[in-house]
């Protein structure tokens, strides 16, 4: 009798999310309750998922410390891993999800009866990305990626209050599918070259064999980089990002962008650094090139945007480049720290955007922010902290994050990339300062904004995290550095 190898602990968080999604849908069908009830169901699912994630973390740390078997961290016939890296990524995803839902709560409420679908899709997307960060098998990565992405395509087109929302959804969908196809083709070629889908096995393969003419493997690596580069919106695979960020409902964009970045970078780091570390001489220059192009191009384009959401989109392109310097540096901790803090900042920023220009709206001109500091000082202050954090000013977590990845890249011998990066950071300052200028330095008067409490909470958490991890980064940095992949 052949039985499947089941490790419940490894999938309990995802299971919690999936069951939560199902519960939301069922509760909605059955009782058509108020939004708060659905919210509580979702909160329950997330709490359970987070709780099990903590348990996983303890297990992973114990295993590393010698209290358990490292083999325990490999589950489901080597399909997924429970190593610190995966758990950290999952935890970040779950927190981002919770905050993202809070930030988009007003939008969800406004969706009427479709709110259950929205909540279910969010939970499922998170489950998918959660699989992606923990997958050891490239097909699993692909599945997780698709689960997450398809859900996001739907979320992008969910409100359909304006024609741009349609446009965003279709563009996201077409290009996303294109990228997925390219990614899975890369996986197929890697499989053809190595006979393996498993990242750890691929690593063993390359440490055991020296492939003299790696042919398909190199093309496979290239295609995987491209496919994942799309997900994290690295240039030149970023073209979807501005349009989707602008067109999709503001209440969701922060969440969508943040989870895709977390999962995408987790996958990139695991595949490239863990799986293909022995071939880094081949892929490092390419990733460095993508990184540089993203940083410079993203910043330049962000500089000239008149719409804040496009600006944030291009700046996220630049951020993808910055995070990628950490990939070049070959240290996963820097990447994890960066995406974790950036995810919070992104969600918080879009909470502000949703508060200022309406959660379902897709136009959010910079001009709307004029005089925000007098109209809604708290909002402006919080947003400023987030913007400075994204810019990477000292005393914010963004600075620590940048410093970390730049250091890694420097130690990896990519000095030129660090220099490009620091100069691109200056461009990024200019980008974010424009918003601050609008908020603080224009005397435009206007009615006081009515800001939903949920947005306030999100902003407060995000801003506080930005400051606290900027001043005392040790706690999170320690976590990130003990969250290395197997």
């Amino acid at each position: 009798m052949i039985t499947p190898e089941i490790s419940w602990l490894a999938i309990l968080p995802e299971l919690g999310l999936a069951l939560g999604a199902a519960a939301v849908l069922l509760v909605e069908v059955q009782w058509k309750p108020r939004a708060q009830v659905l919210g509580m169901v979702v909160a329950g699912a997330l709490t359970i998922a987070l709780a099990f994630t903590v348990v996983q973390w303890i297990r992973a740390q114990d295993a590393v410390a010698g209290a358990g078997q490292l083999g325990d961290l490999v589950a489901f016939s080597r399909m997924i891993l429970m190593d610190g890296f995966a758990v950290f990524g999952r935890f970040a995803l779950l927190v981002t999800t919770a905050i993202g839902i809070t930030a988009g709560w007003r939008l969800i409420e406004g969706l009427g009866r479709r709110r259950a679908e929205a909540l279910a899709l969010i939970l499922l997307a998170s489950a998918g990305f959660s699989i992606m960060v923990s997958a050891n098998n490239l097909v699993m990565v692909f599945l997780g990626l698709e689960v997450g992405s398809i859900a996001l395509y739907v979320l992008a087109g969910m409100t359909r209050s304006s024609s741009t929302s349609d446009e965003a959804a279709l563009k996201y969908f077409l290009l996303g599918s294109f990228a997925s196809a390219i990614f899975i083709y890369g996986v197929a070629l890697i499989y053809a070259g190595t006979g393996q889908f498993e990242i750890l096995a691929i690593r063993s393969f390359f440490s055991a064999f020296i492939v003299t003419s790696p042919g398909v493997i190199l093309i496979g690596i290239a295609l995987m980089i491209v496919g994942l580069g799309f997900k994290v919106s690295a240039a030149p695979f970023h073209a979807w990002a501005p349009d989707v960020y602008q067109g999709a409902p503001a209440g969701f964009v922060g969440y969508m962008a943040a989870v895709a970045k977390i999962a995408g970078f987790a996958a990139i780091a695991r595949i490239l650094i863990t799986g293909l570390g022995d071939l880094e001489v081949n892929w490092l220059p390419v990733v460095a090139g993508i990184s540089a192009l993203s940083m410079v191009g993203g910043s330049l384009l962000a500089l000239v945007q008149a719409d804040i959401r496009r600006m944030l989109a291009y700046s996220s392109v630049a951020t993808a480049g910055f995070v990628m310097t950490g990939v070049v540096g070959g240290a996963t901790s820097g990447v994890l720290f960066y995406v974790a803090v950036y995810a919070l900042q992104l969600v918080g920023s879009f909470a502000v955007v949703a508060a200022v220009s309406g959660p379902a709206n897709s136009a959010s001109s910079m001009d709307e922010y004029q005089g925000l500091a007098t109209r809604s000082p708290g909002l402006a202050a919080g947003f400023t902290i987030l913007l400075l954090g994204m810019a990477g000013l000292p005393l914010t977590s963004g600075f620590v994050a940048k410093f970390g990845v730049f250091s890694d890249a420097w130690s990896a011998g990519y000095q030129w990339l660090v220099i490009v990066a620091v100069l691109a950071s200056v461009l990024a300052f200019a980008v974010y300062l424009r918003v601050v200028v609008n908020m603080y330095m224009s005397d435009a008067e206007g009615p006081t904004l009515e800001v939903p409490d949920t947005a306030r909470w999100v902003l407060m958490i995000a801003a506080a995290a930005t400051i606290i991890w900027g001043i005392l980064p040790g706690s999170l940095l320690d976590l990130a550095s003990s969250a290395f992949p197997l």
Partner: protein
Amino acid sequence: MLTWLILLPVLAAIIVSLVPSRRSELHLSLGIALAVLPLALAGYVFWAFEPVSGYQFIEDVTWYAPWGIGWTLGIDGISLPMVVLTTLLVPIALGASTSIEKRRKEFVVYTLLLEAGMIGVFLALDLFIFFVFFEAILIPMYFIIGIWGSDRRVYAAVKFFIYTAFGSALMLAGIIALAFTHAEQFGSLSFALSDLMRLDLPIGAERWLFAAFALAFAIKVPLFPVHTWLPDAHTEAPTAGSVLLAGVLLKLGTYGLLRFNLSLFPEASVDAVWIMGILAVVGIVYGAVVAIVQPDLKRLVAYSSVSHLGFIVLGTFAFTSGAMQGAVIQNVNHGITTGALFLLVGMLYERRHTKLISEFGGIQKSMPVFAGFFLFMAFASIGLPGLNGFVGEFLVLIGAYATLPVLAVIAASGVVLAAIYLLWAYERVFTGVPEKPENQNLADLSTREVALLAPLAALVLVIGLYPNVLLDKIAPSAEAVLDHVVEASGLVIPEPGRLADVFVTDGEGE
């Protein structure tokens, strides 16, 4: 102790921010009252500081061990005067801000945060911490210029921010490089200045790193030709902003050159003497020449800063004891005099809402006390002996002559040019018959305004006549920097009085 120096302003900022916005009358007075606390503490540190070389009141707490970052603070004779100056200027700057009506609370908060950052820069002995503070102060200053400035404030604020951030960007890369060099040579990352000073850098790398640091500091100073952010920032900034900008922020550049470039890259520093020296001297002359014809009083003072700070850079790179002490004390002097000049211009602006020289004339008639203070500070700035500006510039010039005679002589012409631009401006603003009706009945300085200026004026005199009050504490530390450079680079510093070393026999061949 030193941590409290940084924390006190932060706490003050928090306290002020907790006062409800509608109690706007409280914010400023509360801010001033709280800003006196760091001043008192700094005063105590000054009093307790032993006049010997090396850092004192050292605090060293690991911040993040894996990166080798420590909360390492210490104070020596070079940073001590700057800290005291900072704590002194902040309450004065706040006191000069009564005319700020809009969003006063924020203003006070930003100013106090700025103070914390500035003190942090001077105290940091860990390059990471240093960089954090160095960059962080851009934010409050950016807001101060951008929110409470005059017409082109946004342009000036953004330019200030981006320009200086651009400079420090490469320094960040340099800091990372140093830390990793430390990891290569000693096995662990470290950002501590004392650790990094032990590095054995190849000369090529040392030059590149020197350049990266020097660019950051040169922009901050600002050195010709990267100075143009300064006139804009000064002109647009509110009075308090200008005072702190001129008084302290610019000194971060000269302080950085002295503290970091010289200590970390002694050999490259010696190699760069001519570049830095020529830039400094060009700045001295050029800043002064350009200042002469400025139509705006604040721009004029701003360009004069370019000129004055050239002396400090020249003194730093002259590598003689006198010049180095002169550079350090000139840091303080320029802060006091130029800070006071900006205060004065600000007071004038509050009365007339213009800073254009052509708008004035003959106002000594209606504002004799004001005119007196202005003239006093102008002469301090010109470098009149007996006032503080002279001590620094004279030490620099006399000291620099031994090693850089040509540059020192050209630099000396700056003192003539200073007289030209300041006295010409004084003539146009204060003398003659007040023809414009709005100039005829200007109110003279109030008691509050006199109280703001008086301590600065007193310091101008005290330092001018008895600079030992500072030089005693500066000298050992300055000597230590010099010794380090000499030791590391094998530089031979000609001793004054040893004619053969310094004076190449002239054409007469005797």
